[in-house]
């Protein structure tokens, strides 16, 4: 069992504050670090993995500082975001080298085991440079878990993976968590985080915006007012039927666009309501488009609330 504690940690680069007074505790199980690009997720992971000193505050693993503490790598497995590896090595040689660098008693067996876990044995004798992004990700993963670490830190592990690889990695990470390991991964995609992590930490613009169970985060994100652009066979009739329900806060008939602008307050109720109301009123829906679904607007709502 390993616990990472971030205590009032800030990190600035010159005048730019990348991480601002963040405190969180990450224990066994899968934790998702969610935030838009540039929010400071990588900075946080670099601090947790000892590749960046906090400008103020502390980052500790089981009470020991991680920065300038090489012994902490006995417990930490790190899957960096960057692609660069030793491209001239084969997958097997790469993982084996990592096992040797850890000083494991039987590096060969450890490397074979790690490659088996990520199901990369079939390509272990090919050069890393010839791998696809998903394969590289898996070999990086094998190199990170070759010494059986109690903490696994992954920086944007799902980037560039196809859905099948994504599923496979999620299964793997769930398995590690079930073994009692502490798994932390970052992502800017809510659905991804939600599928895998029970516990979610949200970082926006360097600040710790929210923390908790994925349901709580989902609610925070979906409870905000949503705007939709709706086109139908009879806009006014649809508008009249929608406004009768409490999930709709306001409707504007936009003549120029030839559409309705609907503001919904209850996301789930509204999305269930709209098709039913349309059918009952005999109105055909032509377009239903969220008007402000960009991730940034979701996050900025979270920060302001």
């Amino acid at each position, binding site marked *: 069992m390993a616990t990472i504690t971030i205590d009032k940690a800030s990190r600035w680069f010159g005048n730019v504050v990348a991480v601002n007074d963040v405190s969180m505790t990450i224990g066994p199980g899968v934790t998702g670090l969610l935030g838009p690009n540039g929010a400071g997720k990588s900075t946080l992971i670099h601090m947790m993995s000892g590749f960046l000193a906090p400008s103020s505050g502390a980052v500790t693993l089981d009470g020991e500082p991680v920065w300038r503490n090489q012994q902490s790598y*006995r417990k930490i497995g790190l899957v960096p975001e960057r692609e660069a590896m030793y491209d001239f090595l084969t997958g097997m040689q790469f993982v084996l*080298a990592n096992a040797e660098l850890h000083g494991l008693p039987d590096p060969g067996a450890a490397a074979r085991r790690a490659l088996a876990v990520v199901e990369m044995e079939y390509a272990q004798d090919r050069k890393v440079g010839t791998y696809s992004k998903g394969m590289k990700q898996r070999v990086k993963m094998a190199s990170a878990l070759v010494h059986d670490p109690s903490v696994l830190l992954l920086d944007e592990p799902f980037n560039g993976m196809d859905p099948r690889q994504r599923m496979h990695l999620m299964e793997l990470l769930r398995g590690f968590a079930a073994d009692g390991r502490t798994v932390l991964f970052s992502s800017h995609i809510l659905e991804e985080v939600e599928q895998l992590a029970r516990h979610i930490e949200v970082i926006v613009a360097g600040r710790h915006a929210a923390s908790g169970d994925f349901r709580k985060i989902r609610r925070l994100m979906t409870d905000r007012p949503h705007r939709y652009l709706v086109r139908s066979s009879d806009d006014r009739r649809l508008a009249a039927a929608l406004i009768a329900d409490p999930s709709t806060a306001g409707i504007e008939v936009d003549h120029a666009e030839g559409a309705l602008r609907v503001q919904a307050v209850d996301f789930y109720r509204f999305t269930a309501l709209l098709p039913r109301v349309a059918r009952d009123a005999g109105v055909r829906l032509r377009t239903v488009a969220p008007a402000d679904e960009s991730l940034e607007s979701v996050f900025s709502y979270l920060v302001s609330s």
Partner: protein
Amino acid sequence: MNYTVAALTVRGLLGRRRGLLLLAVPVLLLLLSVLIRASVGPDHDTAVNVLGKLALGTMVPLLGLIAGTGVIATEIDDGSIIYLLAKPLPRYRIVLTKLLVAIGASVVFAAVPTFLAGEILYGNIEHIALAYGVGALVAGIAYSALFLLFGVLTRHAVVVGLLYSLLWESVVGNFVPGARTLSVQQWGLAVTRKVADAGALTSDVHLPVAIPLLIVVVVGATVFASVKLAGLTLAGEE
């Protein structure tokens, strides 16, 4: 020493096109030596000129630069150093191992070719070939340590290294005699003069000055590089 670090470093250094580059420079020197010997015959002044200016003055710093930065700066640049650093390995062992690889490269690609060039040009009369070989070896060690340190300190290690060897050692050293005291090349020459028969060669820096400075630079650069590597900060992607 760490065997795995050494193996990774050697493969990284000699792989890609850098290996060919490392080989091309000494091959050129040897070809040139054969040509000069064939056209001029064995001549003391020509040999000293070629060995001093071309071998010790140009080839050794150039190879030191390629090897010294090649063993670490490329890995820091592309970020693959993270796989070495995310391990419970003392940083000085990583630096020391990489330094030994760089020194090994400068022996094979600079010191030995310098000695061979001396043999071709003038034979080992007055121990000149051996002297320049040893001088190249000593200078190669210092350049390796110095340029390895540059690789840890800055993302522009090659530029900084070139500025040092071109501007400081060549240009400034040519016009300001005092600057030669702080020049790896001159320390190498001081050692060279000592190894050769008495009176065969001259140098601007005396051995009692050169040796302590060489030791200070090699040890200092290695210690400093280890400390800096332990606190290496990876540039954020954001």
